[in-house]
């Protein structure tokens, strides 16, 4: 099928954006990444001008790494798993809005990883030497933990969240859900209070406006609002306890 692709481009972080349109011909089973790959093979825009290939990020090509996330027809999604047959003949591509653009469709999502550091999103093990099996985990806990652990830090939930914006430093739903994951684990729970403390700080769970957009857009079905709800309760209990302790 023939598609007309309009792309919001930018040469570098300091330059302003511009729009460029291409015409490509691909089977309808192709994904959006294929469009960008076709453009590289023939970097000529719809006016027939030679242009530079469109810069984009991708790796796994099967929606497990999160690299290729961008706005497609106004909705943030993974380009590798968005197929032409679901889009129609006119396609709009733009970079994510909530992150600084590097070039064309590439954005800098470092702030997600920084936030993971802030909430201590890890299990504090003693070391890697042999210590025998880990704590037994009930199948029930594994099922919910696994769902949370599939978060690939793609940023879609932040893109959809009204509370993530220029005026706030909200760490966003994904990172908060990871906090819950680590509090769920028997060893992870040993530093639960550190994490709750962080969530009570500026940019933490208090910023959540309960719009619930995040859970609707998450490509991996991570139970974001479930985790947010649980942590709302946990941080509340913790802050009362903290109050009583002092």
């Amino acid at each position, binding site marked *: 099928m023939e598609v007309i692709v309009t792309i919001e481009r930018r*040469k*570098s972080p300091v330059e302003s954006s511009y729009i460029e349109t291409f015409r490509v011909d*691909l*089977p309808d*089973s192709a*994904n959006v*990444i*294929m469009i960008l*790959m076709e453009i*590289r*093979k*023939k970097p000529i825009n719809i006016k027939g001008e030679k242009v*530079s*290939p469109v*810069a984009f*990020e*991708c*790796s*796994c*090509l*099967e*929606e*497990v*790494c*999160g*690299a290729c996330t961008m706005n497609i027809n106004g909705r943030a999604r993974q380009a590798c*798993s968005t197929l032409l047959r679901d889009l129609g003949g006119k396609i709009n591509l733009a970079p994510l809005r909530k992150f600084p653009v*590097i*070039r064309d469709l*590439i954005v800098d999502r*470092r702030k997600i*990883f920084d936030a*993971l*550091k802030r909430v*201590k*999103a*890890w*299990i*504090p*093990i003693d*070391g*890697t030497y*042999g*210590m025998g*099996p*880990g704590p037994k*985990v*009930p*199948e029930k806990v*594994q*099922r919910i933990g*696994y769902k949370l*652990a*599939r978060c*690939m*830090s793609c940023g879609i939930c932040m893109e959809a969240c009204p509370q993530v914006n220029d005026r706030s430093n909200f760490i966003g739903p994904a990172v908060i859900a990871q906090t819950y994951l*680590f509090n769920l*684990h028997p*060893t*992870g729970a040993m530093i639960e209070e550190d994490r709750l403390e962080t969530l009570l700080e500026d940019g933490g769970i208090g910023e959540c406006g309960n719009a619930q957009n995040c859970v609707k857009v998450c490509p991996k079905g991570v139970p974001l609002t479930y985790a947010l709800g649980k942590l709302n309760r946990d941080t509340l209990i913790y802050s009362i306890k903290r109050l009583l302790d002092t």
Partner: protein
Amino acid sequence: MSCEIIIIGGGLAGLSATISACEKNLKVKLFSVLPVKRSHSVCAQGGINASVNSKGEGDSPYIHFYETIYGGDFLANQPPVKAMCENAPNIIYLLDRMGVMFNRTPEGFLDFRRFGGTKYHRTAFAGATTGQQILYALDEQVRRFEANGLVEKYEGWEFLRAVIDNKGVCRGIIAGNINNLDINYFPADAVIIATGGIGMIFGKSTNSYICNGSAQSVLYQQGVKYANGEFIQVHPTAIAGLDKLRLISESVRGEGGRIWTYKDGKKWYFLEEKYPSYGNLVPRDIASREIFKVCVEMGLGIDGKNQVYLDVTHIDRKTLEYKLGGVLEIYQKFTGEDPYSKPMKVFPAVHYTMGGLWVDFKQMTNIPGLFAVGECEYQYHGANRLGANSLLSCIHAGLSVGDNVLNYISSLSERCEDIPLKIFESEKSLVVSKFEQYKRLNGAENPYLLHQELGEIMTENVTVVRYNERVLATINKIKEIRERLNNVNILDSSDFGNQTLFFVNQLYNMIELALVIAKGAYLRNESRGSHYKPEYPHRDDQNFLKTTIALYDKEEPVITYEDVDLSILKPVERKYQ
């Protein structure tokens, strides 16, 4: 100038290496083209092997060792494989302690599933996204060290060259920032390469888009030995795609999935018929050849195309969702068909390289100070890798390398701060001028199309079935592509985020490695593991129970052979009937 160690790559191998180095209090600079959390290891679906014998089947690390060597057609050096299998249960326990959400039995213990080349339930798994789950756990541990100041990440930096001093010792690297194109040198007392697979050399494969082997190739061109390059694993079950051949994990067969096609109007379970005791779980090389034969030689593919059925429709939906949800989701998403009610259509695809940078038992290459771990090295899988052994080999090698690096550094009489800066400067200017030269390329060829051509001829002639005449023609064709590369157009004049610039560099490197693969295949006149030549259908231990070693030469690789360490198990004929 501070002397730290440098690790290139943040997949399972690179992250494990980082953790083991940090535990030895070594400071690490960790380089990766993408944020490490997006490394290719996230694609691994099926699981990771360890003989924990939790199902009372009598499994043991020794049996695991035996099956790994046997499955690899005796081409792997035996002592390191044995050490890996012995360490495997520890690794699973460690990952469990790190919080990997492995599937559980009803009693809350780790669950294990079956994989190819064994009859034991030996594979621990986290749904069907095991690699992702393990990578995240390691990433989290590394983030902890990063917060403590032991790790400094260089994400968005590409390794471009090793700095090797005039005594032949590795002293650091040259790397380039893929965004602002800054090219710089980074001194170190040791460098660990963990750059993963090379699927891009075949154009389309099950690998991630960033698995191009460029780093390995650069090192090979700098004098590092490249071993067993011709051993490329073709996985029997992938879905065709325009951009990628997406894997349908072996775990699908481990959980009871069956392969069949129609013959004389009836369902024909050809693997079960020919290999009654292993059935659908014969090793990958064998399954791929059988599917290839059924489709290409007998013309019995489904709908007359190169595809057979992989069928799970007889398994109940709940079990499928819990154990294989992630894989079946991929199938559904990309084909639009429902694998729960309709058999999946699959065909073999390039998947894994058993070959890689030559290393000794301490993971060090022939260049002192330069180590390699993970899929980029050759040590653990012989002529064919068993499913779920790769994640294991990555982590095992990564976790053990910290010690070796520390010992190596303690033995150094000259530390990297003693090395004159001009060595680094001159290596850097070599790379800088090469990139300047790329920027001036304004010929007629498109580099991406040229890459497509390379991938097509490699897939056509150097995968499941190899004929000498065609492999030879391929070698000549690769050389022609190498010539034509000098006539490409760089397409992009920007000094920011110029992806074509880096791609052209990678393409040069992919071509050199393609020659290693093809020439190794051409000269190995036998059939062993994944390497199959109809003209030489049998294994020839007399002449070829040897590790292939490729050394760089401008025209084409120089191939020699090295003995295999057979100190524990005696080679026997490999059969799975």
